[in-house]
């Protein structure tokens, strides 16, 4: 098995699978809104706008078909959230799943958190392959027997049955958020997790649903003074007292829960000074951070704003250590992108298992990878045309001006309705999942 820590130039990405329909008319409900591998990579979960969660499981690799390196097949599908109506405000609450986060596996069952704008739910996904048979008081259909007809007693036995995967909601964490939840993050203590909305972050204990601790509150006393919101938050992967949250002004705050109950005073404040030559009316909007992720090592954080991905060293607050241009050719198009609201698209970003490569999405179903060591980058496309089994993905290039080469695409031809906002990287292998509207693409590196 190739892949772990390999340099990007050696990696050739191949199409593996695509999930979802090919229909031209996409139902809004089928649009994938979050993608997440579990901690072993055995399971891959997606959430959609219709409030459903679909979990794929990697099949065991078989010696008969070594080239099919463990395909992902549907394991469980369930309706996580339903649309609700807030009668107080006369507004609908969308059932769209904003985030899914897995808990580390501690027994045979799998647990995940899924959240919409207002409510977080803990789901237990478990297998059942046996069922009890031979009850005394009821027959096989479950109907009660007439006790006077029972002449003998028997001991019920467990008999094997077809595998059933059940998803049950174990906890519902509701009524704690006035604003829209944008992030959830499981703490490394595995006992608590946080949920963040536009103005507040709450800390929960998994066992307690009727209380949460408010650990960050940036709501001003007078809402008219509001100029900044929380855009993403995450716990440190190893230090259970540390978390970060990002803002719409392009700043990241690192907080230590040991210092105070309400972490309004940050321990560290990460902000890059503005480049005066690039200043425009859109500067603030494009500096708004749409995603923040700790590296697996816990030494770095990665942030995504509209045009770039940045890597920060936790020990250096005044500027990022690396900046990667995702689609700088859009810089001269900001006004159009403001008009059609694309400038508000929230792209996510992910690390590979060894923190050597980072990935994020773009428009036209393009996604980008940056190798932090070699400084090389590649643009790939998730499309049905490239979807032959084990077909190698060809790098794509956007032509900025002047002559367009044969395989290049010009900026004006980009399809801004095809945006890749959500991607995921297997924790230890070179397997990636890319959500393109209602389709989920799975790519793997080439097996020799």
């Amino acid at each position: 098995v190739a892949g772990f820590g390999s340099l990007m130039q050696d990696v050739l990405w191949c199409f593996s699978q695509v999930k979802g329909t090919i229909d031209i008319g996409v139902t809004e409900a089928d649009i994938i809104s979050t993608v997440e591998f579990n901690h072993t990579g055995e399971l891959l979960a997606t959430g959609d706008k219709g409030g459903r969660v679909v979990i794929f499981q990697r099949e065991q690799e078989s010696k008969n078909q070594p080239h099919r390196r463990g395909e992902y097949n549907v394991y469980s599908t369930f309706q996580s959230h339903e649309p609700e109506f807030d009668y107080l405000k006369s507004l609908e609450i969308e059932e769209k799943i904003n985030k899914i986060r897995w808990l580390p596996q501690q027994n045979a069952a799998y647990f995940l958190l899924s959240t919409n704008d207002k409510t977080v739910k803990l789901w237990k996904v478990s297998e059942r392959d046996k069922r009890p048979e031979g009850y005394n008081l009821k027959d096989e259909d479950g109907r009660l027997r007439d006790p006077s007809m029972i002449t003998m007693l028997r001991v019920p036995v467990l008999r094997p049955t077809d595998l059933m995967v059940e998803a049950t909601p174990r906890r519902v964490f509701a009524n704690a958020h006035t604003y829209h939840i944008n992030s959830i993050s499981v703490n490394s203590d595995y006992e608590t997790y946080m949920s963040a909305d536009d103005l507040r972050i709450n800390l929960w204990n998994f066992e307690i649903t009727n209380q949460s601790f408010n650990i960050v509150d940036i709501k001003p006393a007078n809402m008219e003074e509001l100029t900044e919101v929380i855009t993403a938050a995450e716990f440190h992967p190893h230090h259970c007292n540390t978390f970060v949250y990002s803002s719409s002004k392009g700043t990241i705050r690192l907080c230590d829960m040991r210092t105070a109950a309400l972490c309004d005073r940050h321990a560290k404040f990460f902000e890059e000074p503005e480049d005066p030559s690039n200043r425009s009316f859109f500067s603030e909007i494009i500096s708004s951070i749409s995603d923040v992720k700790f590296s697996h090592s816990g030494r770095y954080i990665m942030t995504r704003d509209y045009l770039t991905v940045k890597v920060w060293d936790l020990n250096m607050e005044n500027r990022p250590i690396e900046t990667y241009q995702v689609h700088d050719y859009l810089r001269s198009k900001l006004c159009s992108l403001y008009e059609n609201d694309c400038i508000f698209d929230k792209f996510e970003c992910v690390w590979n298992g060894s923190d050597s490569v980072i990935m994020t999405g773009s428009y036209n179903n393009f996604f980008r990878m940056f190798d932090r060591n070699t400084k090389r980058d590649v643009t790939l496309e998730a499309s049905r045309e490239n979807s032959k089994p084990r077909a190698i993905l060809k790098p794509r290039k956007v032509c900025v001006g002047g002559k367009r080469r044969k395989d290049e695409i010009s900026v004006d031809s980009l399809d801004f309705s095809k945006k890749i906002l959500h991607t995921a990287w297997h924790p230890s292998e070179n397997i990636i999942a890319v959500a393109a509207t209602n389709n989920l693409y799975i790519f793997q590196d080439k097996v020799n």
Partner: protein
Amino acid sequence: MFVRGLKRKCFDGEEDIEGTLAGIKAIPSYNLQRQSLLDMSLVKLQLCHMLVEPNLCRSVLIANTVRQIQEEMTQDGTWQMINTQSTGQASLDRLVSTDILCRSSREQAEEKHVPSYGTFNKDFDGDQGQDSSETMSTASSVQAPRNLQGNVWEMENPQENKGNFQKSLDQIFETLENKSPNSVEDLFSEVDNSYYDLDTMLTGMMSNTKMGHCDGLETFSSPTNTASNSNCKSDLNELDHIVEILVES
């Protein structure tokens, strides 16, 4: 750029807006571009009122952009120019002119996603040679639908006799920056989800309207809503009257 009748297309590809601002201000097109960006932003803030609670991050970013433009216009002196032109007897005339523009934008509301912005551009194409006062009145057509209600309040409250455009932007920034002691009264005078009430808009706390459209934005409302909107208006007349009494006592 406007000469070529580029509807709803922004000034992309032009280096002006991205370059150093100081040197560019002399170019008239910069002011027009900035004005169109301001109007587009104001329309976007309005369109935030939807069935689902508006995206707070997006609203805040747009509001910050509006404030940036206003600050720059204040420094420019462009803001002063708008001030002086909007006070005085001209207010009544302006009511008429904006009403006309409002009607045309209502007709186009069904076809276009951003109807008033499209209208603005279309009107502006015809008014190429005009000076900035024309700019201002066509710009105020974007706020015209909301100002229909605002006009009613104005005639009842002579002490607030500002021009429509000035009043609408002032109310936004008063609520944003809490400059005026009357800001609370202003908030209550527009309980009907108008974008004047930034607090209401940003938090999506709407008391009356099921559909969540701005009450004044009848251009955007579906026909079924007008009945409920007019009920709200009569209630608000009374509410405003009550608030006026309370504040003055």
